[in-house]
């Protein structure tokens, strides 16, 4: 066992883990953060995407011990004070999902993409999401959602939605649990 201490969605955690434990396993099985999902065995699909010290990673391809001392943000940590992150809002607004399985990863990668490039072109969005596979939507509404988010505060993390919009979204939470 190896002792790790890290911050997950704003909460400090200290744990003893087997070195072979994957970060995604740690998040799901030890912390109960099942919003982050596993979609493949090959590190291709991106469903497990989280932010590690502010940048997107595939949490199935990182060991929990490698996250020692780091800050992890999962889909469950995006909403602030009961208010969806603008990228979450955008996926809902544009119906950027069907079954929803790829959605946590899509949203986490989109947040990263908009942080690096606040107003991406359609091509830049498609390239920026190339590590995230969706079996349902044909990607079209996902791309639209990212464009919508870019126009509505998606790169800053502050929702430009009016209070009325937010109210209309209650009682939905992150919308990302599957």
């Amino acid at each position, binding site marked *: 066992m*190896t002792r790790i201490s890290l911050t997950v969605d704003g909460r400090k955690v200290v744990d003893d883990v*087997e*070195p*072979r*434990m*994957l970060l995604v*396993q740690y998040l799901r099985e030890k912390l109960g953060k099942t919003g982050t999902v596993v979609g493949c*065995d*090959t*590190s*291709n699909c*991106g469903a497990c*995407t989280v932010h*590690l010290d502010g*940048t*997107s*990673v*595939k949490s*199935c*391809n*990182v*060991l929990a*011990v*490698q996250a*020692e001392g780091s800050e992890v943000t999962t889909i469950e940590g995006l909403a602030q004070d009961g208010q969806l992150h603008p990228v979450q809002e955008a996926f809902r607004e544009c119906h950027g999902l069907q079954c929803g399985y790829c959605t946590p990863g899509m949203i986490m*990668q989109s947040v*990263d*993409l908009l942080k690096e490039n606040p107003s991406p072109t359609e091509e830049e969005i498609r390239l*920026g999401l*190339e*590590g*995230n596979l969706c079996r349902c939507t044909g990607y079209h509404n996902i791309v639209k959602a990212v464009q919508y988010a870019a126009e509505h505060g998606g790169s800053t993390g502050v929702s430009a939605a009016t209070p009325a919009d937010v109210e209309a979204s209650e009682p939905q939470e992150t919308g990302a649990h599957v």
Partner: protein
Amino acid sequence: MIPAQFDYLAPTSVEEAVAALGEHGDDAKILAGGQSLLPVLRMRLNAPEVVIDLGRIESLRGVREEGDVLVIGAMTQHSVVASDPLVEEHALLIHKAVQHLADAQIRHRGTFGGALAHADPAGDMGAPALALGAEFVIAGPGGTRTVAADDFFVDLFETAIGEDEILTEIRVPKHTGWGAHYEKFVRVAHQWPIVAVAAAVRTSGGTIEEARVGLTNMGSTPLRARGVEAALAGQPATDEAVREAASGAAEGTNPPSDLNGDADYRRHLAGVLTRRAVLAAAGA
């Protein structure tokens, strides 16, 4: 699947890491960004008893200049290489190629040194490093040694790095002002190339003065297309002249045959992609 059990060491200096390697020998495996190693461990294709993580050794990260040489630390992540202004200015070919490696998440974790040490013949970093004549600094129990690009890649997934050694930095001669292009041919997003061509050219008034051409996935290691380089020197940067020179790109190669294409198909691709890469590098 998850990896088999292993002990985990996270040294904070190269000396400590080399000592740990020396102690555990064959049973140990180096972990860099993990983007190739972790999939291998998860599929149980390998089950080391000890994993030595280089992630805590700060001195292995970053890009710096040393006179005519650009020094890239082995543990510098692909995303850092991709956005580093020194790399863009002095090694444009690497800057261009790394944008096409895998996807954003993998570029955030995977490292320049890890990709080169892994030596996947379809890996995107080998051909640019070879074409630019990079040198590889390797630390072992007896100190450090430097290996030339031509001697670094030995075979499929095999390099000059010994079992008790660690790649610490890659020294790239500056190619300031050279045009460059990486032409990667691939069927689906975020995957390894079927064939790719790395080209850097120094032009003057529409004439190619000097060219460097590296081939990805045309043999068990990245290859230099020296015949093409010689044929390009002194030629005008026109479609006709470059097409002629590029036609010999597959000479002396030994490409694989697999589901993505047979060897003949790859030989054909090498010529086509070399023409495209050189023309784009020359800005023609």
